[in-house]
C-alpha cells in the first residue's frame, strides 16, 4: 500500500520508508569527513561553490555546540539549524543543572533521541540530516560520533557522510593508521587527503576545523589548507615519479 510512504509507520516487510528516504536526502548533501586523532579531532567539509554575489561566510556547515564539542552535518541545512539550536540549548542546560560540560556521548545521545522522536510521531517527518559530532570530554579523551536520521549513533575513528561517502570511507579504511594520527599534522593530512578524493580542484573547496585538547575549535585559514593541499599534491607527484622510475 502506498500510504505507508507518507507517515512513519512500518511497511509490511519491516522498513520505515520515510527514514530511508531521509537517508537518501542525506546522500545528496555535500561531503563531510571526520578523523579522530590522539590529541586532536578534525572535521573537513566540501564547500559547495557559491554564487558570485553571495557572501560565503554565511554558509557554515561546521558549528560549535559548546567549548568542547562541535558538529558538522550533511543533508537539509534548515533541519540542521533546528537541531543545532536544540543541542546548544541542551549543552547549556546541562551545565546549569549539573555544573559540568556535556560529554560528547551525552550530546550525541540527546541529538539521536530527538531524531528518533520524530520517527515515531505522526504528522512529523524525520530530520533529513546525518551529523558528525566531535570533541573532547572534560577528562581529555577525544571522541567522534556519527548520527543518522533513524536516531542511531555510533562512535568512529574516522568516517564520512554525504555525497560519495562510501568512496571516502573506503579510502579512510585503507589509509587510517593509529601511528599516522598520533600527531596533529597526521590527522589533518588524512582528513584533507580523504576529501581530495571526491572534491574537485583542491584547496578552495575545502573547509577544515580542528579541535585540540583543552583548546576551542579553530577553523583553519584557507592559506593553511592550501599549504597542506600543495604538500600533499607534491607527495603524490613524487610517489608517481618513483613508480615510473
Amino acid at each position, binding site marked *: 500500500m502506498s500510504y505507508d510512504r507518507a507517515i512513519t509507520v512500518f511497511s509490511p516487510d519491516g522498513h520505515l520508508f520515510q527514514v530511508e528516504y531521509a537517508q537518501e536526502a542525506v546522500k545528496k548533501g555535500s561531503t563531510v569527513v571526520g578523523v579522530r586523532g590522539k590529541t586532536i579531532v578534525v572535521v573537513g567539509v566540501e564547500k559547495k561553490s557559491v554564487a558570485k554575489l553571495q557572501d560565503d561566510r554565511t554558509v557554515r556547515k561546521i558549528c560549535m555546540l559548546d567549548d568542547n564539542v562541535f558538529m558538522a552535518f550533511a543533508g537539509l541545512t534548515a533541519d540542521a539549524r533546528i537541531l543545532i539550536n536544540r543541542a546548544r540549548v541542551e549543552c547549556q542546560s546541562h551545565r546549569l543543572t549539573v*555544573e*559540568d560540560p556535556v560529554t560528547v556521548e551525552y550530546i550525541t545521545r540527546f541529538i539521536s*533521541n530527538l531524531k528518533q522522536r520524530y520517527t515515531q510521531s505522526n504528522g512529523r517527518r524525520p530530520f533529513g540530516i546525518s551529523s558528525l559530532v566531535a570533541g573532547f570530554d572534560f577528562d581529555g579523551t577525544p571522541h567522534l560520533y556519527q548520527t543518522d536520521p533513524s536516531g542511531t549513533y555510533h562512535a568512529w575513528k574516522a568516517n564520512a557522510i554525504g555525497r560519495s561517502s562510501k568512496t571516502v570511507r573506503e579510502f579512510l579504511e585503507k589509509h587510517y593508521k593509529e601511528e599516522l594520527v598520533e600527531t596533529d599534522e597526521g590527522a589533518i593530512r588524512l582528513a584533507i587527503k580523504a576529501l581530495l578524493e571526491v572534491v574537485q580542484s583542491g584547496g578552495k573547496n575545502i573547509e577544515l576545523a580542528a579541535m585540540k585538547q583543552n583548546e576551542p575549535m579553530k577553523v583553519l585559514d584557507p592559506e593553511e589548507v592550501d599549504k597542506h593541499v600543495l604538500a600533499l599534491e607534491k607527495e603524490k607527484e613524487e610517489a608517481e615519479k618513483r613508480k615510473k622510475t
Partner: protein
Amino acid sequence: MALQNICGLKSHSGQGVFGTMTSQHPSRIDHFTFGSKCQEFALPVGADPVGFLKACSGENGVSIDLNHGTTTLAFKFRHGVIVAVDSRASAGDYIASKYANKVIEINPYLLGTMSGSAADCQYWERLLAKECRLYKLRNKERISVSSASKLLCNMMLGYRGMGLSVGSMICGWDKQGPGLYYVDDNGTRLSGRMFSTGCGNGYAYGVVDSGYREDMTVEEAYELGLRGITHATHRDAYSGGVVNMYHMQEEGWIKVCQEDVSELIHRYKKGMF
C-alpha cells in the same frame, strides 16, 4: 501532536485538577526529570505557601521557627574526608529517637548528611540517590560530587520559601579528588574544606577549628571528628545519642565507628566529672 504545537494550543492532558505547574511525563529517558522543568509535587490551585509562611514567622504573633536540631560536621584533610553526625531526633522538647540515621549512603563513593526536618532531608536525599543512580545508568560513569550537590540544590530552589528545612553536606570522592559541598533549603551551595550544620554547629566549629591541621594522621582526624560532635552534644540540648563517623577515601567510604556520646564525654573531660 505536531498540529497542536504549530497552532499554539497547549495540551491540557499534562495538567491534572491541581495543576498550576505543568507536569511532564516523569520518565523521559533523555533528561533529568526534576528541577525547573517539572515539579515533584503539584500544588493546589490558589495555594500560596510563601505568603502563609511569611505570616507565621517573626514578629506577627505565632512563630513557626524550624530549628535544625542536630549537629553534623565534615572536613577534608590529606587522607580524604571525615564525616561525623549525632543521632538525636527531637520533636520539640521530646526526644523522638536516640539512634536516628542522619547519613544517607547514596553510593559507595557518595554520602549525604541530614540536618533540619527529618522528613524533608530523608525524602529529598533519597530522591537525590535515585537521580544519581539514573545518571550512572544513563552515562555509564558515576556522577561527580559537584553535580550531585547541584542536583540537590536545584530541588531546593524549586520549593524556595515554601517551608522546606534541609541543611545537608554532600561528600564524596570523584575524578577531581575529595569533594565536600554544603547545600541548604535556601538553595545555597558552597564548596569548602570544613562545614558543620545544625544548631550544635557553633560548638563543633570551635572544637574542630582549634584542632584542625591539613596534615593530620587518620587517627588524629578520627579523634577530632569524635571530639567535635561530643562537645556539641554535651552543650546543645537538641543533639545527642551516638556519633556515627564515616571516612571517605579514594576507594570509597568506610564506616569508622558508632560511639555513645555519654561515654565519649568522660574520655574528653577527665577533670570535669
